[in-house]
């Protein structure tokens, strides 16, 4: 069998169980694809071929002994802010360019116990601050649908790897849309679970009240399988939630007749591309055909403030979290000046990129004496308002459906010099992040030949209903553009090969 790299995880698992091929053959197929397209896509910061083949060998032993799980032998891309013992982890930053973690994150340990295979560490905007991967210190990733376009971000490498065939699934992280927006732009599925559903132990911190790890995959079933594996309480993260974990695979293929869907008016704004509006309207019609009650009159009036709330709270938390990069304990260190303080300032000036500095400064300002009440405290109060509006909506609706992003993928460089225009990419994904709610992005068709994503938001810990709605929608739509065609000219073509 050829082109094994095109399979979904659940297809691959069935065939591995049936001994149609081995896990080593599957991993070799993915690595061969990586060798062919990575010079153009640049989905990875670090490739771990030797680790992958060794892990694939162990996976074959698990299949032979009947110890295999649905993820055993499945080649995955791991976002490079997920620490992996003995494997360089940079968070897309020069300041961690030589950092080799002495321990592993909870999610990586969990995947390893399940027998999953790591292909490499996926590219990302530095410290997850960005919506295009252009803020990576290691160069941007390209969108496999058209190499001249961004894959979205910050988990753009993870989404590009899955869409481009360089991994069968991936882990990303989402603070304000960093899983869902790249999934939308790359035509794959991405799920940001409820805050606290997945342990943040060993996740390089950005905004601690917002960060969540989640899966990216080629279909809803793969994403549900990955989320099932990594979910659950972990005493090493005190914000990890003890709420029992549901078996998400149980909610696949279920009827959604009678499901109550709210569609917030405030999400249909100027700046939304006509092709995106059209696909979302068709999606709502499809939900009605599936027997759902679709109410387009839902109002979430504080939606317009989510962007300001997020871009005050996330940078504030980041300014505290990133204080640890001082060039003393690990990471890049500039020791050219005479004093410790001057070295620290030079280390941070030389080690952090432009966007990270901008956000640290924004957060430092919002937390500083005289401005704390006007910015940080005010944002926290408006956050309560946003939460209350969602809570009221979930009294009436089972799920809320919106677009994931106002646009399809945009050209590399188009928004790089206008930070606020870049922030606007996340306008539809920020509100549920601020509230800590689970939200998935599933492909809902094409606009001008590029994928459009549909976002389904659920109530706290209602991942089951989100999966149920997303799977029913995906099956009814019949989406099958799982691996992209790699058209266009990559900016990496000449420089990387």
């Amino acid at each position, binding site marked *: 069998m050829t082109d094994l790299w095109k399979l979904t995880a659940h297809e691959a698992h069935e065939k591995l169980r049936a001994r149609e091929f081995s896990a080593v053959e599957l991993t070799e197929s993915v690595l061969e694809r990586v060798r062919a397209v990575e010079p153009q896509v640049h989905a990875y910061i670090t490739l771990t071929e030797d680790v992958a083949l060794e892990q694939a060998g162990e996976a074959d032993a698990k299949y032979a002994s009947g110890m295999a799980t649905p993820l055993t032998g499945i080649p995955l891309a791991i976002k490079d802010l997920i620490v992996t013992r003995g494997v360089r982890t940079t968070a897309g930053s020069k300041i961690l360019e030589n950092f*080799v973690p*002495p321990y592993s994150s909870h999610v990586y340990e969990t995947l390893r116990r399940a027998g999953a295979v790591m292909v490499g560490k996926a590219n990302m905007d530095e410290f997850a601050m960005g919506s295009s991967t252009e803020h990576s210190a290691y160069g941007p990733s390209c969108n496999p649908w058209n190499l001249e376009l961004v894959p979205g971000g910050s988990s753009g490498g993870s989404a590009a790897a899955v869409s481009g065939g360089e991994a069968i699934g991936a882990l990303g992280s989402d603070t304000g849309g960093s899983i869902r927006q790249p999934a939308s732009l790359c035509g794959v599925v991405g799920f940001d679970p409820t*805050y*606290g559903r997945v342990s943040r132990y060993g996740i390089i911190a950005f905004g601690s*009240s917002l960060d969540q790890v989640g899966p990216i995959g080629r279909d809803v079933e793969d994403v549900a399988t990955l989320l099932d594996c990594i979910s659950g309480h972990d005493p090493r993260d*005190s*914000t990890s*939630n003890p709420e029992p974990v549901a078996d998400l695979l149980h909610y696949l293929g279920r009827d959604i007749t009678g499901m109550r869907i709210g569609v917030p008016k405030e999400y249909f704004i100027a700046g939304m591309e006509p092709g995106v509006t059209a696909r979302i309207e068709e999606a709502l019609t499809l939900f009605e055909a599936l027997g759902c009650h679709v109410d387009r009159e839902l109002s979430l009036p504080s939606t*317009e*403030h989510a*962007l*300001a*709330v997020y*871009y*005050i709270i996330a940078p504030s938390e980041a*300014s505290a979290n990133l*204080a640890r990069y001082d060039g*003393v*304990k*690990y*990471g*890049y*260190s500039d*020791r050219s*000046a005479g*004093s*410790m*303080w*001057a070295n620290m*300032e*030079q280390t*941070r*000036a030389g080690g*952090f990129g432009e966007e990270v*500095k*901008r956000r*640290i*400064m*924004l957060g*430092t*300002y919002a937390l*500083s004496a005289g401005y704390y009440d*006007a*910015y940080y*405290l*005010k944002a*926290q*109060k*408006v*956050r*309560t*308002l946003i*939460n209350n509006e969602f809570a009221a909506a979930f009294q009436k609706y089972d799920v809320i459906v919106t677009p994931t992003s106002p646009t399809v993928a945009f050209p590399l460089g188009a928004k790089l010099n206008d*930070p*606020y225009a870049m*922030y606007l990419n996340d306008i539809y994904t920020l509100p549920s992040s*601020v*509230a*800590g709610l689970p939200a998935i992005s599933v492909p809902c068709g094409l606009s001008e030949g590029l994928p459009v994503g549909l976002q389904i938001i659920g109530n*706290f810990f209602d991942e089951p209903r989100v999966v149920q709605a997303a799977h029913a929608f995906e099956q009814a739509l019949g989406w099958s553009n799982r691996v992209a065609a790699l058209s266009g000219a990559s900016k990496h073509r000449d420089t990387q090969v």
Partner: protein
Amino acid sequence: MSLSRDEVLHIARLARIALTSADVERFAAQLSGILDQFAALAAVDTEGLEPTAHPLPLSNVMRADVVTVSLRQGEALANAPEAEENFFRVRAVLE
């Protein structure tokens, strides 16, 4: 909202980031522009609302007081830019 050069330098000092004078100009303009977009927040009525620090606050998270495995000294120092006699080495803090 317009940030002055001195304000930008003050923030940079608090954040321990050295800036060139070109950086100061650029950040003053960009940060002022971003803060302008946040101005509408001031008009939102938040009377009587408690601030949200965490979406799902868990309080008094306890664990048993049991010694577990931690990093060995060598592992903790392995990424150090400079180490000496099992310590992280830095330049003199006090002159």
